[in-house]
């Protein structure tokens, strides 16, 4: 693979990480935030508003980081892995509560 195609593939990977990985990460963040805060006694809609508000700022940061980070594999690991982990934890908390 030439360097040009390698860097094009890397660029596509970074774009996908920024858009999709960042979305998944933000999703997981909202889910975990809402579940935890609700479990801790925060009113449901407060938790919903608070964490979606913060999630957009987080999405902005992870988007930029996807391009700024040295290693795109690490970006994927943190965003997709972290997002899935947070979402799973949220479902777990919900399971306990409902």
């Amino acid at each position: 693979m030439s360097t040009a195609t390698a860097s094009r593939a890397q660029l596509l990977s970074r774009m996908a990480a920024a858009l999709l990985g960042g979305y998944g990460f933000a999703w997981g963040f909202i889910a975990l935030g809402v579940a935890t805060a609700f479990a801790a006694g925060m009113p449901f809609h407060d938790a919903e508003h608070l964490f979606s508000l913060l999630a957009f700022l987080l999405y902005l940061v992870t988007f930029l980081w996807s391009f700024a980070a040295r290693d795109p594999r690490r970006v994927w690991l943190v965003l997709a892995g972290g997002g899935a982990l947070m979402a799973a934890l949220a479902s777990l908390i919900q399971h306990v509560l409902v």
Partner: protein
Amino acid sequence: MFQNFRLAMAWVHTWFGLFLGFVLMVVFFFGSLSVFDREIDRWAIPESRFEPQPMPSYDEILKPVFEDMQPSKESVDQMRPRVDGPMPEHFDTPVRWGAYTTHRDPVLGLFAGYRVPNAKNPDELVWGTRTIDPRTGDALPDDQLKIGSRFFYPLHYSLNLHWMDLGYWIVGLAALIMLVALVTGVVMHRKLFRELFTFRPNKSKQRSILDLHNLTGVVALPFHFMFAFTGLVIFAGIYFPVTHTQLEPLHDLHEVVESQETGLPHESAGVPAPTASVDAMVAEAQRRWAARDMAGDVGFLALQHVGDANGYVSIYRAGTDRIALTGEGIHFKASTGEVLREDPPPSAVERIDEFLTGLHLQHFRHWLLRWLYVLGGLAGCACIATGFLFFVEKRKRQHAKRGQIGARVVDAMAVTTVTGMLIATLGMLIANRLLPTNLPARGDWEQYCFWGIWVLAMAHAFWRTAPVARARLAPAWGEQCWAIAVLAVAAVLLNWVTTGDHLLKTLSVGYWPVAGVDLFMLVGAVVAILAARRLKRRARPQPAASGELSGETAHA
């Protein structure tokens, strides 16, 4: 891959900014127009050119209108596949009635939702709407399109592309990219303070375009950031439907608790009951607001479970005197008029959310601030448009040398989304004045005109940007500027001819909604003529002045 952080950010700024910039242009421009959406409605529907009215008496005006309403044909047709058996001819179980107004509305919009017998999901309703003159209760013709509040405004946040909510998602992505472009733009430049005061119109074209791009971006930076951010927050439920998918069980759990807490019945009782005087409830709500030192008018009035023993009336206050979008809702038992619940004061998070939402949606009464919103939005448009121009100017010589078409395509798209969009907008207003008043589905025709004219402008843009491929200025810009000037003047004249409301008249009686739209178009015409003349001067061959460009522009 990227040599350093700044180059990575510059790449993101250039390419994401370019592709989503075409969407952002539409969002910023129609967002700016939406600040005066109700006023544009007045211009487009001459029958509604009178002073804003308060919420009329329910008992005398609204009740008979609601009783006369029926769901719309479209709503019934949409519902048909989700019903076992045939649809009834007449729907006689209204579940929800509502009326909504603002301090800028002469006419009043009503909606009604009806239960559908044998619906597969009994909670799903069919809906009807009506617009009335609140002084008499008379209906305005249904097919008159409120161009401002029902076309330009939804265009701003959904591109009027409703298939799978696709428009919302595209606009949401564009808003995220706006935030990204602002941050990366700041990273790229660093000399932020100096750029606030830098505009060199007489330097080379590329230099002055970049100055203008930086100036409009930096001057209104907090404005741009807040609007993109709050826009996302408003539709957070669409972009991240976490609590209606993954956390739905948790949401349902909370809803049961909530309806126990509020005491407002979620279901109807199935026992008919008469409705007490709603006017008395309104008076009580206003008395309670005044007692809280926030006397105000009714903005939104709704009846739930109409004519049922569980029915209740919710009355919300119009937020004309504050930024936060609050309702201070008070809920009454419909059959007796006793107060069921007064919405508690908002929590800290709610206050933040209401403030951010209200900041974007501006229900407040403050005309200077409204105009600042328009200017901020137009500064955003200028920032995006100069971004396109800089992209083209920077590359067109190189592309011409190599025989690439990139610069030409971007220039054509820029013409389409800048001047082409203005032409389509003016074309729609002209169609609004020219189409026969008795034309069936007149509002649909107005929309076809808008899109059709835009497509024509796009075709013209692609045709008349050919010289860009030879590194020259596209004649499309100047030609479309002239088109804007002609159309804007034509729209103002047509308003005069078809309604008799010329500027001298509307100005002398101070009817600002119509005078303002006319004046705004005339100013637009003047700006377009100045731009066209300047472009003509630019088009003359001049010695290339690319040598002085250095440093800052090299990485964009």
